């Protein structure tokens, strides 16, 4: 995702300076931005970051240094998600960075049978009950919110903290555990359950990021596409074969698959195949001056690459950010 945002920023001429922070240098050589290799899990990461921030005079920071696949090593994930965010915020406070943007996901709400059909931003994030992976994401969010409380807007310089919770991101260039799930020829479902799903297209998400970079929108926003799809429908649109499996069997299969490194997610995520986890995008539509171009269904079609006209349509309505190349696994902008 970070790569796409970077390219979109580069295309928007007139922006002063962009730096990218990552474990490895970018896969493609491109000019226009400077790159630093940083490892957020190191104990002196905040000193390294502070040095870079001061040297470059950073104004805004997008934090999207998260695993796109739930990692097998939970300690490593905790180090990166929770402790890495801590290092980042230490350095940001010291360097008095004005704007902090966190990329999060609507999964943090968790899928539960007692969820309302549309989760607003005020709804408590209960995903920590499901999996440690989501727990760390929620912890990162909490740290950002604490940061905005410690550094209120009345202070000089004003700090703006924005959290964007994106629904399942789909698009021709995205790769995360949900796209892996939909790419198998046979997609497992839980027998007797057919929850509604919601998607957002990668270019819509990039536009939302640009919006909060160039304008001040403090707060939490759900970034989702219009409309919902039942899982069975989504699978049939993707041209795959749905395979309903009784829950107990699926849980044991997922557990085995997870330890054998075959399944894309640990079995904790099975609730997402049973219950609703749909976010309400009203708040972002009204306040961000941003609208999704793709509906959920169109995002899925674009992901499956079935329709050429869909990408043409996106180019027409949004010529700047229609094309973006593959994004590496861990991105830090």
């Amino acid at each position, binding site marked *: 995702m970070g790569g796409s945002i970077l390219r979109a920023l580069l295309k928007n001429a007139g922006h002063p300076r962009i730096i990218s922070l990552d474990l490895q240098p970018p896969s493609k050589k491109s000019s226009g931005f400077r790159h630093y290799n940083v490892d957020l899990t190191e104990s002196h990461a905040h000193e390294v970051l502070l040095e870079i921030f001061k040297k470059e005079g950073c104004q805004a920071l997008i934090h999207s240094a998260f695993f796109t696949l739930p990692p097998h090593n939970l300690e490593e994930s905790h180090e990166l998600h929770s402790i890495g965010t801590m290092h980042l915020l230490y350095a940001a406070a010291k360097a008095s960075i004005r704007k902090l943007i966190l990329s999060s996901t609507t999964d943090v709400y968790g899928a539960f049978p007692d969820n309302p059909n549309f989760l607003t931003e005020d709804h408590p994030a209960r995903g920590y009950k499901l999996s440690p992976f989501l727990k760390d994401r929620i912890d990162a969010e909490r740290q950002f919110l604490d940061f905005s409380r410690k550094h209120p807007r009345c202070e000089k310089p004003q700090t703006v903290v924005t959290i964007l919770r994106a629904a399942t991101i789909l698009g021709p260039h995205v790769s995360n555990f949900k796209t892996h799930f939909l790419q198998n020829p046979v997609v497992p479902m839980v027998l007797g359950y057919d929850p509604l799903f919601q998607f957002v297209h990668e270019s819509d998400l990039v536009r939302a990021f640009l919006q909060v970079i160039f304008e001040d929108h403090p707060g939490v926003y759900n970034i989702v596409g219009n409309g919902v799809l*039942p899982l069975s429908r989504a699978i049939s649109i993707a041209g795959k074969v749905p395979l309903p499996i009784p829950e107990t069997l699926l849980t044991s299969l997922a557990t085995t698959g997870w330890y054998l490194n075959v399944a894309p997610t640990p079995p904790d995520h099975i609730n997402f195949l049973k219950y609703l986890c749909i976010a309400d995008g009203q708040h972002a539509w009204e306040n961000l001056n941003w609208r999704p171009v793709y509906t959920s269904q169109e995002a899925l079609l674009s992901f499956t690459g079935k329709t050429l006209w869909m990408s043409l349509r996106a180019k027409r309505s949004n010529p700047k950010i229609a094309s973006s190349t593959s994004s590496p696994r861990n991105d830090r902008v």
Partner: protein
Amino acid sequence: MNPLGPWAEDLEKALKLEQLSKNIKPFLDQMEKTFLNEKGFDWQSFQGAFQQYFQHWMEQQGVSKKTLEDLQQALQILWKDWFQPRFFQETLFNLARVYFLQQATESSVDEFGMDPKVVEAVRPLFQFLYKDYWRVSVEGARHLPAKGRGIIISNHSGMLPYDAAMIHLAAYNEHSAKRHIRFLVEDFVYHFPFLGTFIHRIGGVRACPENAAWLLKKNNLVIVFPEGVKGLGKLYEDRYQLQRFGRGGFVRLAIRTKTPIIPCAVIGAEEIHPVLWRSQILAKSMGIPYLPVTPTFPWLGPLGLIPLPTKWEIIFGKPISFSKYKAKDAEDDLLVHKLAEQVREKIQEMVDKSIKKRASIWF
């Protein structure tokens, strides 16, 4: 000599197996002679002979021919009027079509997961329940608004939310606007596989203030059962005694969104599953709020879930408007409780009046 020993021989004798097979042999021979021709086994003449034999046997037992004929006629009527093969074929065919022949690019469900195709497919089934099984009669359908939002408040009963489906059909059949009422369902149904998904697809929405507010914002007619699970699992001895109306959330909603409330009384639903006793310990282990014990359930298994064919009446009352209250009044707990109690009394009154009038629960 039997290879198993002398005792096995004794056993065989005791069971008279030899005699039994000797008796059966001529019977089978006779059957073959009569019914087996060159075309194979003749089922039709076998059925006729069996019927004759059965009648003869019944007469021997002391059942008169008249009673037998009556019984036969009743069965025929049942078969023709209730279990018409066409009706079942239609429903099954529609459901199959919906699930197997979906067009991949066509958008299907609305934002709450209702699939219009599924609604159309199951409508004949519910129309059968409405027209033939429970013979629902409707009073005061004119009180339903032709457009704009509204909250229908009703008494709740019957183990499964059949009453919601019948109120939905009452509005669809009897009101000229043919409105689709959305109903709020207790969230325990969503714990179950199949049932939760099915209720979603036919238009049910999980009961919570957020969902109700969203539906009203989109100018829907919404059925709310403030009794909730307490009403659904009402004991038979408590029938038509309206339970406490929650914490009056529907009044708050009505005041905030300036929505009229339409009181509704459903008569007949409270007898379809006479709950004699509720088991809470068993239910807890199954993750449901209660496990009802009726004369038929769980003794007859899934068959015990067939509701009784009582006679239903649905009465819509005059709309109650809370427009004179301001949004601030919704915070006043005492006022909200008082207004909820008023609505409850109104519905109780409608229920009592109708029960006095009816002669039997079956007709």
